[in-house]
């Protein structure tokens, strides 16, 4: 303590100077509007810069957390996109040229665990449904109406060993035949794709529109595995896009020109 006092007395000239200048400077900053405003602005600027740096550092330290969150969000959005894209494609297909009418139906019975699965809908001939109409969901194709009663209709699900749908690879239009695997409600096969065709895991398979039942471009599945076992065709395994386990509302599609086309084709066959 004494040392400090000695030190201050020894340098009293400097200390008095500093004290007086501090007082003067305090007056400058606080008693003059202009200086006060300038000082405030300056202090604010400095403060803002420090805050900015602080936030930047904080952001950097939290990058991993933010990244994880973004990945999760991305995943969610991707799922949403898939739904929207398929329903967009469907509505596009449906509205094209007014060739197709569609009816919204509710699924009242559905099975997925048999070899020959059927779905029952809550609308029938009274509402305009007829056999051979296509049934789709927002995610993709569901099946074909097999029989109708006045109030109900029976649909052959795609999960049925008896059904085959004309399908094509979306990106290059090579067409083959879609067939259920019979082992899982998610697995199906795409047959008759020749070996020279470029097909990879992740490619989308859609309906070809050749049967005149399904409009063109309704999603069927996504390629999961491509194998060459024998012969001239690939063994392609698909992941079915429609979630048969959670079917609730479906669309029934009526092709207005189906009869005309059938007639035309029957003519050729008869000849």
């Amino acid at each position, binding site marked *: 303590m004494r040392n400090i006092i000695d030190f201050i007395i020894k340098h009293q000239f400097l200390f008095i100077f500093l004290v007086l200048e501090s007082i003067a400077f305090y*007056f400058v900053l606080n008693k003059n509007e202009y200086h006060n405003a300038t000082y405030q602005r300056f202090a604010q600027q400095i403060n803002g810069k420090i805050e900015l740096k602080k936030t930047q550092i904080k952001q950097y330290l939290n990058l991993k957390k933010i990244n994880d969150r973004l990945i999760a969000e991305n995943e969610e959005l991707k799922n949403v996109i898939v739904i929207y894209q398929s329903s967009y494609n469907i509505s596009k297909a449906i509205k094209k040229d007014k060739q197709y009418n569609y009816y919204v139906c509710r699924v009242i019975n559905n099975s997925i665990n048999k070899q020959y699965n059927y779905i029952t809908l809550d609308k029938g001939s009274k509402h305009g449904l007829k056999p051979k109409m296509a049934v789709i969901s927002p995610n993709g194709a569901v099946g074909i109406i097999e029989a109708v009663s006045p109030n109900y209709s029976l649909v052959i699900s795609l999960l049925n060993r008896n059904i085959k749908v004309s399908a094509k690879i979306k990106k290059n239009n090579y067409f083959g035949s879609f067939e259920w695997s019979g082992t899982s409600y998610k697995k199906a096969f795409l047959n008759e794709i020749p070996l020279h065709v470029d097909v990879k895991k992740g490619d989308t398979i859609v309906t070809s529109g050749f049967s005149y039942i399904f409009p063109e471009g309704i999603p069927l599945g996504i390629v999961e595995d491509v194998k060459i076992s024998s012969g001239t065709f690939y063994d392609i395994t698909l992941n079915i896009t429609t979630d048969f386990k959670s079917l609730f509302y479906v669309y029934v599609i009526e092709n207005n020109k189906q009869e005309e086309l059938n007639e035309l084709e029957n003519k050729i066959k008869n000849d």
Partner: protein
Amino acid sequence: MIRRQINHIILFVLLIFLQVIFFNNIQFSFLIVPYFYVLFVLLLPFETPGWLLLLSSFLLGIIIDLFSNTLGIHAFATTFVAYVRPAILKSFAPRDGYEPGTMPRISYYGFYWFLKYTIVMVLIHHTVLFYIEMFKLTDFFYTLLRVILSTIFTSVFIVISQYFIMRK
């Protein structure tokens, strides 16, 4: 000795009057504002103790501030120039130091010595004063011009005044 102190107190009051009534009102332009009162710091005896030097300068500055509504600015500059005064006097000292009993005046150390001393002191005072007044560096060269012109005018007034007041 006591007569000398009374003389300085009279000088103190006189300089405040002169500054407030006369010099604060003769602005040739915005560029030239002479601050004549700094003469008080210049004329204090060599032997003035440090605390008295600083305190009287601070007091002078504060009073000028009160009259010109710029609280703190003149006090800051005047205290600053009082603080550097001993170092400047030391650097301008004759070879064998200042003789005891003499004062920092033209009559003791000559015109050139006094002119040098005045210009350096006034320049320091005005530099601090004008830059504190501006309080930013954006108009640096404009402020510098004001400092230089005002220093010239204040120095001229101070040197001339030495031939009118306080003869030996």
